[in-house]
């Protein structure tokens, strides 16, 4: 088990290095000019060149990368080209919004997908049909379109929810929830359907297994079979679906943030991309890459805890 965890941790580290190198190369390919972004379109070419020199952008890519990576090892993600503020400070300001959005969506997806999956295998045919219909709608309806529809209907037309804005949970939990309600629905709907279908399929497979038939023949009740035995054994597929869903949620959150004008990492990334603010972009790349790695590691651990067989895999 310890060896397995060590192997996973080493793999995660290698993955993060690969992500950082790829991110640095990709952000270097972009058509951006930080000196121009800082000085504006009316600055002369010589002024822009001098600004880029001040930022160290006339050095080789390798030199820039080693400089940046050295800072990361020391816990310093550098300073934003625009405004000259530390990248960590910027990310700390924007992170809570995205994390609130993703965490709340994950809770909604986990709870709803499990409830729907259990309901659909409990002999309720109409629920099963509803789940399948929801899955089709979730896959067919683009999240961006759903977000716009929700915004126009419930924020602009009925004015039940705000058009934009985020309130920290510490300031007002009700306002926090009110501001995130529509974005979370837009973000979670497609993933709820997908995760519910995964859980439903896995549950149906497990419920048809020999050992379940044996349990039933010994007189153990249907509810006990479902919740104490089948659900645990069907969980790996559902957890995998959730971990994949987390990656999709991060990507989707960037889009939803734009529609609802939420000041999250997506907004920060768009600003940084358009202005060529590479330190901020790389900070977001490292953070999101790290989050995906950590979530996958946690899912592995959870699976090992739930299914002893997974510990020897």
């Amino acid at each position, binding site marked *: 088990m310890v060896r397995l965890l060590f192997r996973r941790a080493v793999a995660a580290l290698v993955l993060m290095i690969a992500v950082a190198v790829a991110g640095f190369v990709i952000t270097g390919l*972009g*058509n*951006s*000019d930080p000196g*121009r972004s*800082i*000085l*504006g*379109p*009316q*600055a*002369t*070419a010589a*002024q*822009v060149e001098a*600004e880029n020199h001040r930022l160290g952008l006339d050095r080789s890519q390798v030199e820039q990368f080693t400089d940046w990576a050295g800072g990361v090892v020391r816990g310093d993600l550098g300073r*934003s080209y*625009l*405004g*000259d*503020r530390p990248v960590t400070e910027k990310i700390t*300001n*924007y992170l809570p*919004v995205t994390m609130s959005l993703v965490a709340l969506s994950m809770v909604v997806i986990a709870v709803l997908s499990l409830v729907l999956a259990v309901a659909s295998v409990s002999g*309720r045919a*109409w629920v099963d049909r509803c789940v399948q219909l929801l899955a089709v709608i979730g896959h067919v309806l683009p999240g961006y379109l759903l977000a716009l529809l929700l*915004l*126009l209907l419930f*924020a*602009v037309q009925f*004015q*039940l*929810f*705000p*058009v*934009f*804005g*985020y*309130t*920290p949970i510490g*300031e*007002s939990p*009700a*306002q926090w*929830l*009110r*501001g995130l*309600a529509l974005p979370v629905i837009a973000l979670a709907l497609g993933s709820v359907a997908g995760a519910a279908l995964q859980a439903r399929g896995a549950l149906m497979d497990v419920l048809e297994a020999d050992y379940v038939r044996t349990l039933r023949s010994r007189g153990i009740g249907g509810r006990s079979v479902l919740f104490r035995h089948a659900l645990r054994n069907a969980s790996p597929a559902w957890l995998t679906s959730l971990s994949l869903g987390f990656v999709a949620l991060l990507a989707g959150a960037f889009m939803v943030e*734009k*529609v*609802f*004008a*939420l*000041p999250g990492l997506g*907004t920060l990334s*768009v*600003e940084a991309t358009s202005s060529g603010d590479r330190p901020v972009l790389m900070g977001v790349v490292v953070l999101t890459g790290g989050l995906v790695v950590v979530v996958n590691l946690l899912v592995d651990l959870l699976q090992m805890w739930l299914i002893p067989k997974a510990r020897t895999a």
Partner: protein
Amino acid sequence: MHKPMKLAGLLVAALTTASALAACGGTSSSGGTTDDTLTVGLQSPLLTFDPTKMDCATSRLYCQATYDTLVHLSADGKPEPGMAESFEYDAKGTALTLSLRKGITFTDGTAFDATTAKAALDWFIKNGGPNAAMSASITKVSTEGEDLVITLSEPDPALLGNLASNLGMMASPEALRSPSIGTEPAGSGPYVYNKGRSQTGSTYFDRNDAYWDTDAYPFAHLELVQLSDPNTVLNALKVGQIDAASVGARELPAAKEAGLSVMESAGSWTGLVLADRAGKVQPALGEVEVRQAINLALDRDFYITELVPTGAVATDQIFAPGGPAYDEALDDQYAHDVEKAKALMAEAGYADGFSVTMPDLSQFVGGPAPNTALEQMLGSIDIKVTWEKVPVIELLGAMQGGKFAMFMMALPTQSPWQDIQAAVLPEAAFNAFHSANPELDRLLSTARHAAPGAEQDTAYKAINTWLVDNAWFAPLINSSTPFVSVEGVTIEPQVQGVDLARYQPSKK
């Protein structure tokens, strides 16, 4: 319980929760209109409170709320007293003496006087950052008793405007030296930054009751919200979550339909920069008749009707309509006349036209239609255009570096001298071939040394006339920037942009 009953129960629970959440609303911390709070939607985020690094062109309200300036600008762009009660140039126009207002205190308790003003200006000159050009002509800042004296290397017509912007923004010298100036400002503006109520994307201010002119800023609180998506801006205005914002030309009709008030301020001119006036890359452009012919070939009314949603006027001038340099009569000089244009082409020896390569800007103007329109208009006098795709990162450098003899551009209209600095002076960013002319040099020198006011305005008009006569540019349109406000808030007219003082409660 039957299944349909359970479903109904779930629905009722969901709706109840939604209603409860909705009822919690009213005034959210991000947006939300109350009688004493002005909430304005802005495209630009607040990047820093460091006065040397703030971009007051795009983040004007952040600057003006936090920092007062030595000079203010009136609605028609004229310099007027600010932290300096009066100001006066010497006879040569190279020394500006400012008599400073007494009794002003920065938010950290430091008193404002000539010494602190000199310290702030010296700090700017030393650490001007992206705004360093504003202080380029200053050779010395000194105090004379309670007055401040700024000495220049040569007359600088942009100085007073700059003193109403970053250069004149006064901050406590101690705060300027502090590494936390980016997040903890100490100015003396009409509002005080409220860090506790601000959050990412939303900056909150409370009125500075110690400000010397509180009557000009009647709102008790100010909230500046970053909204980069034009649809969100429009929706937020419609539901009253924000009180005011500038909107795009495409959103303007919907804003008017929704009953919102509109104030249009000068925006930018769009057209051709006929850059190669000496004919280095394209000899034809060295002939004034050819440049005039290009102007005559442009059907500006067609361009507006077919390609511009709203809020634009046809013009052949690069200066803001209604501004000191603008001359309405000049707009008739190049009325669309293909026959006259052809005659001029023939006179210059280009009866068969010529070929020219221009950078393809279709990705910035929403499609290929403007290119097609230009091709047709220039084609009417046998000028064949080839469009060259240039990577975005290289585009401005290529245009400013003299790669293209002529190119399409949209430049903001500011004060006349700022417009001249951007596109007319030999070292200007958009004078790609560093064109110069003895007659123009004389006119520029006259404007530089003229006394601000009527004398200088006359000099600006003379420069404008010369530029139009010699067809240095072929402008198509001048677009205004629409500013929209909800019922209860009025945006008073201003020539260029909208200062914080223009936002006022509507008179009942």
